């Protein structure tokens, strides 16, 4: 049965990947006009002889279409660069839009896509139903014997695959237009707009959280805490992160995930984002106010009462993916003192970086000057977006699940986690309490801590765990075979003896 399920999943993925090779490309002038939104650029590009030659021609190969298109523009640019006519160079990359527009999807694509997704989901649910038959309790048997969950060859392959996926998604999305076409009908249904690579990503992300979230809920069906928080994460991902922004778009309101909080949402104070909200009236102003309120008041207050888990393991999308899809990799986080030291440098480094970037951004917004201390704000934004937004949060954050555990981004990078961590460490009612002297130093709590906290080091001393990084997933408490650990926010019931 299990083998059958895995074969289903394998066939499913095979179908999805075969989609990437089917469909035809045909460029028209209309497509150029629609996707090259700068009129100047359109005028230049559509007149290029090699682009003219492409028009009307049927391409069955995506690769040659993209390379023809890119070499046409590159050729044009290189001449200009040689002549040092920098202002005339076309810096904007229109490849994705034009390729996407030129693509016609045959019915086979939808059939394969549907079958592929169906097989994968069916396979996963068959595995889940198998798991459901086993008795309730902790299910960690063989975790360190399976290649995929112990940094074995399968784990490394999966890691590489995820890393490549993110690189393609961020920097070469034109190669994914077949998949984008697959989800196009859904996008049209929701927002009325055609799908972009981001819509594709958001949809995959949400489906993954739902499917693997259900798996997690069943795995932990003996623990109400685990079930509730996973239900919550699934809810916030599907509604707030995925559906609501699409609906906002449909209503001609700014696209905004209302639970995504600055500085995790690092573009929140970018001038075009602020402008967009101000321009869209009362609701836009509300969104702006809501975001500022969450950052300045909501987050500290909630963290004071409940610890940062209220966000990290109950609401956040990054956390949601980590807790559901990434659950099988939580044991791979490094627990050494050294990694704790590194973690504090990197995460607060990112927080400082985000802070500096925002100071530049707001300075430019209010003064209208694009330079502060001789540095252009937009350049800093670009660097932050590239290094933190894409490489750290995306490629490393998720691609490294099977290599460094499921919370690499949350632990080493997330500026919001850093911000909440300060409150959690110094001013919060939340802590993990330790039950007297019951610890047998078995190490399960530390091993399964996704944030790399050496919980045992505290537990065996009988000392409550107060740590900036704890996301309150509660797994240490669940796996402890002696019932030693508990997440608590109440007043201290009994003083230590």
């Amino acid at each position, binding site marked *: 049965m299990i083998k059958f399920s895995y074969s289903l999943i394998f066939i499913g993925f095979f179908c999805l990947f075969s989609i990437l090779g089917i469909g035809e490309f045909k460029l028209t002038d209309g497509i150029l006009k629609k996707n090259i939104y700068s009129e100047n650029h359109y005028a230049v590009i559509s007149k290029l002889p090699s682009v003219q030659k492409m028009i009307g021609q049927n391409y069955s190969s995506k690769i040659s279409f993209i390379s023809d298109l890119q070499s046409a523009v590159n050729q044009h640019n290189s001449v200009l660069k040689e002549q040092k006519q920098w202002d005339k160079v076309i810096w904007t990359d229109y490849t994705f839009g034009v390729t996407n527009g030129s693509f016609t999807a045959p019915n086979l694509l939808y059939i394969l896509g549907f079958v592929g997704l169906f097989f994968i989901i069916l396979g996963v649910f068959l595995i889940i139903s198998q798991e459901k038959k086993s008795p309730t309790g902790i299910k960690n048997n063989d975790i360190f014997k399976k290649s995929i969950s112990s940094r074995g060859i399968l784990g490394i392959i999966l890691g590489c695959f995820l890393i490549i996926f993110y690189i393609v998604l961020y920097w070469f999305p034109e190669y994914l237009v077949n998949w984008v076409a697959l989800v196009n009908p859904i996008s049209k249904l929701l927002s009325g707009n055609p799908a972009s690579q981001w819509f594709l990503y958001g949809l995959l992300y949400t489906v993954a959280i739902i499917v693997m979230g259900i798996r997690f809920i069943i795995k932990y069906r*003996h623990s*109400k805490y685990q079930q509730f928080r996973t239900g919550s994460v699934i809810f916030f991902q599907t509604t707030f992160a995925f559906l609501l922004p699409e609906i906002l778009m449909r209503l001609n309101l700014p696209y905004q995930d209302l639970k995504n909080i600055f500085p995790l949402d690092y573009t929140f104070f970018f001038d075009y984002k602020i402008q967009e909200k101000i321009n869209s009236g009362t609701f836009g102003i509300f969104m702006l106010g809501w975001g500022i309120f969450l950052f300045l008041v909501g987050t500290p207050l909630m963290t004071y009462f409940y610890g940062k888990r209220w966000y990290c393991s109950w609401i956040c999308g990054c956390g949601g993916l980590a807790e559901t899809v990434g659950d099988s990799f939580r044991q791979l986080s490094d627990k050494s003192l050294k990694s704790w030291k590194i973690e504090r440098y990197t995460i607060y480094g990112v927080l400082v970086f985000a802070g500096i970037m925002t100071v530049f951004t707001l300075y430019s917004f209010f003064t209208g000057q694009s330079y502060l201390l001789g540095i252009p704000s937009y350049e800093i934004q670009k660097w932050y977006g590239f290094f933190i937004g894409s490489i750290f949060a995306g490629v490393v954050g998720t691609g490294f699940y099977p290599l460094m555990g499921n919370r690499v981004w949350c632990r080493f990078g997330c500026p919001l986690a850093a911000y909440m961590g300060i409150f959690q460490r110094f001013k919060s009612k939340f802590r993990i309490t330790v039950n007297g002297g019951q610890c047998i130093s078995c190490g399960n709590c530390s091993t399964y801590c996704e944030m790399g906290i050496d919980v045992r080091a505290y537990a065996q001393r009988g000392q409550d765990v107060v740590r900036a990084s704890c996301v309150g997933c509660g797994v240490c408490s669940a796996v402890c075979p002696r019932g030693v650990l508990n997440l608590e926010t109440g007043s201290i019931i009994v003083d230590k003896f």
Partner: protein
Amino acid sequence: MSELKHIVIIGNGIAGVTAARNIRKLSDHKITLISSESEYFFSRTALMYVYMGHQKLEHLKPYEDFFWTKNRIDLLKKHVEKVDISTKNLLFSDGQTLHYDTLIFATGSRYRWHDAVPKDTLGVQGLYSLQDLEKLEEISPKIKKAVIVGGGLIGVELAEMLHSRDIEVTILVRESGFWGNVLPQEEAKLVTKHIESRGAKILLNSEIERVTTKVLDSKNLSPNPSAIKSIITKKGEILDCDFLGLTIGVEPQKDLAAAAGIETNRGILVNDCLETSVKDIFAIGDCSELRNPTKGRKATEPIWYTGKMMGETVAESICQKSKKYNPGIFFNSAKFFDLEYQTYGDIQPILAENESSFYWENSQEEKCLRINYCTQDEAVIGFNVFGIRFRQVVCQQWIAEKRTLSYVIEHLEEANFDPEFFKNCQSEIVAEYNFKFPEKTIKLKKNSGFWRTIFG
């Protein structure tokens, strides 16, 4: 501070390590920690998790390797052959010697062999050391059917381990209920039912009469090529098996001390300050036996917590002034497959004369609570709890303060240590109490856990 001594500890288990750490906290004495089992301290209690693939061996080390040099605790992976108390020297198996000023025996225990089984039969072993685990790992692929003798904590762990590899497991229990020499009948029954629901068979009231072995073919070069074939119980049942697990208890490793002329009985005898019959030599943990155990405690307690507390005490005794070992109110905990168990105070399998017992069980959810109390003044003396987590401090305080049963039932909420949102059984327990004692009906005091969580 007094002059610096060389303190040598034989055994790097929880007792020895706790002693070493605490001596370092209190003094600058030179400390040497010796063990022939492993270079670094590891958690013996978690051996099962390595076998089942929950953890790797490296996860069992409670301290990172740099810890020992940083705290100036010298580690020595050697076997002590002999202790010469007149010259204060240790002799190692490699012929080298080491001088000590103060010596601590923390040699632990070893599993007991069953008299009915010929020594060195292949496929027969207990589980105590790293080497035992390696041995078990090695033969596991060949095991189809296993029998485990002894229904205790290590027995059930061994059963769970083998079961995780799809090996058919039968546990032989001498008593009429699982762990019947410790658990009262109701709990023993609950545990028995739970273990069976997880797929291991239990034969109650059964003991080994003898075993049969088979001779392995001559290609096998082992000097003792006979392997376990079956066991025959006293009732005459024959159980075929290719593995026999011995979990009928552990015995203190006292031979080294006894040979040195230190007084021993079942274990190495120690006084209230954990000193042996010889000055400057102490014994702690599994290997020790108290001459005068405090009330409600046993002379030998082969458990983790006891080793830890003894290690703390002996450190103070050595570095400051003689300190009496006072372990306080007993507590212990365990897990039988997925069933968690905690106990506080003194609960005997059979009630003493002046004791009464309050028992509540929700068998569907596999939860139960027993509170024993003095019949006369209703003062609680012990708790057994399955499937619910209780707060150690609260329970111990109640026992120390001699709180009455009704007070405890009324305030049970304070003892609850279950995670947030877990079902609260307090109302069921109160109902049971009111049913049993209709004349002194009590009411629920606190609001439920959910609201406490939200407005905590």
